[in-house]
């Protein structure tokens, strides 16, 4: 498989007064097309910064980010990004928030309505179409954001802790949903999570980041799919992987 996203000796520092706050230093990563990469890392290690760079939201301080060989200088509609923080438009209700990417693409209204209804159902928000974001629970808002991203039919998905605020059941449902969408679609997924189990359950490959985005571990996960959480949890291979990840995270924190 060829690399679709390539980050080469990337550094990012934020300017605060007369100091540069280093978020990523000399970071290199390749992501193959149609792969499902999960990214683990401690709080503040630069995961969101990495996704922001991949999405073209912020420019790197040095190094290059390319998408299919082209440098990324601004967001591209074929890359969908579910950011860590809420960015729903407070003045639009659920339906109109979800329709927004289609509006921008110029999809005709009836088709928009239809697609939105479909996605609202898929994320389990039937009956909440007319609610404004502030009238939703935290998990519901997250699901609206997810629906909004999916409705744009992106070729590559960047997800920053998409299921963190969801209950176990819903999380399982949506994980399954995401996998169903992804499998065979040729989409590329970069999935940031804090949950090792989730990382192992979903990813083709797990990347563990240490301080300043140092890649502590980069490993293929060859557990056969479909992977069922309940069975996996007692599988010795899985337990070993889990340990390995935990160790890698601990090491990442030290260095």
């Amino acid at each position, binding site marked *: 498989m060829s690399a679709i996203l390539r980050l080469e000796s990337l550094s990012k520092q934020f300017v605060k007064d007369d100091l540069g706050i280093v978020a990523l230093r000399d970071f290199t990563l390749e992501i193959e097309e149609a792969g499902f990469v999960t990214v683990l890392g401690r709080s503040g290690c630069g995961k969101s910064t990495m996704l922001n760079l991949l*999405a073209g*939201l912020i420019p790197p301080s040095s190094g290059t980010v390319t998408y299919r060989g082209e440098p990324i200088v*601004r*967001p*591209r*509609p074929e*890359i*969908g*990004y579910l*950011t860590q*923080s*809420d*960015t729903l*438009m*407070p*003045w*639009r*209700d659920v339906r109109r928030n979800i329709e*927004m*990417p289609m*509006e*921008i*693409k110029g999809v005709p209204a009836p088709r928009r309505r239809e697609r939105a209804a479909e996605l609202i*159902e*898929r*994320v*389990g*928000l*039937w*009956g*909440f179409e007319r*609610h*404004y974001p*502030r009238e939703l629970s935290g998990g519901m808002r997250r699901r609206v954001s997810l629906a909004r991203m999916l409705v*744009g039919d992106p070729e590559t998905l960047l997800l920053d802790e998409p299921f963190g605020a969801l209950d176990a059941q*819903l999380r399982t*449902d949506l994980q399954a949903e995401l996998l169903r969408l992804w499998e065979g679609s040729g989409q590329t997924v970069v999935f940031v999570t804090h949950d090792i189990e989730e990382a192992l359950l979903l990813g083709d490959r797990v990347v563990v980041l240490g301080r300043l985005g140092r890649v502590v571990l980069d490993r293929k996960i060859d557990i056969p799919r479909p992977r069922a959480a309940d069975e996996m949890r007692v599988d010795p291979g899985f337990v070993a992987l889990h340990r390995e990840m935990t160790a890698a995270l601990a090491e990442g924190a030290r260095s």
Partner: protein
Amino acid sequence: MSSAPPDSAAAPAAETVPIERTWWERRGGTVTVALSRLALVVVLLAVWEWSAERWFDITFTSKPSAIWTRLIEWHQDGVLWANTWVTLEEIVLGFVLGSAAGALAGFLLASAPRVYRVLDPFVMALYSIPKVALAPLFIVWFGIGTNMKVLLAAATVFFLVFLNTAAGVREVDRGLVDAVRLMGGTKRDIALKVILPSSMTGMLTGLKVAVPYALIGAVIGELVASNRGLGYLINDAAAQFDTAGVFATLVVLSVIAALLNLVVGLFDRWVGRWKPLEART
């Protein structure tokens, strides 16, 4: 609306109950406010009338009954309506023109912060010039007709709406702008779908602040050069020491202001219908 679609495995749908609210629960707030206002008006007028001859010099403060008499007189001989109409036209035209231009400029310039910073002191300097001082220029350039007054009103309104809109635009949440950029939105999409709705509050404050100045602009225009309109009436009454006449005109102006304000208020409510109740005007 409260039934989940059959094949959804996901979370439960919203459970809603119709709320039975009496007429009072629905409209009570509005009615109370209206009544309080009315009471306030009555009290103010009564105090004014009562104290007019006792405490004040009636030559300069007049009194409500005299003002009312003057209004009736003017109504009967048509003076009132003819002049009000002239001024109202100037005000509305000036307000619409000025606020459209102001909102547009605020919008555009705030999106180009460099240009904005360069131009800012010039705009401020321009606005610090008392327009009456430029009366000769206004007359030479724009004549003494309706145009000049509309322009004066519009110029005043422009500035207020412009600065407020620009402030609103600068406050827009970067996260929301980024969200649209991620969807592949163009600058135009960002402007229309994020900046416009979220800078609405700023713009509306601008509109609200500008209402009185539209009136003042038009009336000043009429004071500068006119032979009709409410400014003319004021001038005429003042020259004849007819304080009741001056105040009668001011009452008409206040009513116009209240009406315009109402329109802006309705627009505000409509735009802010997504906000929690406490944050609405």
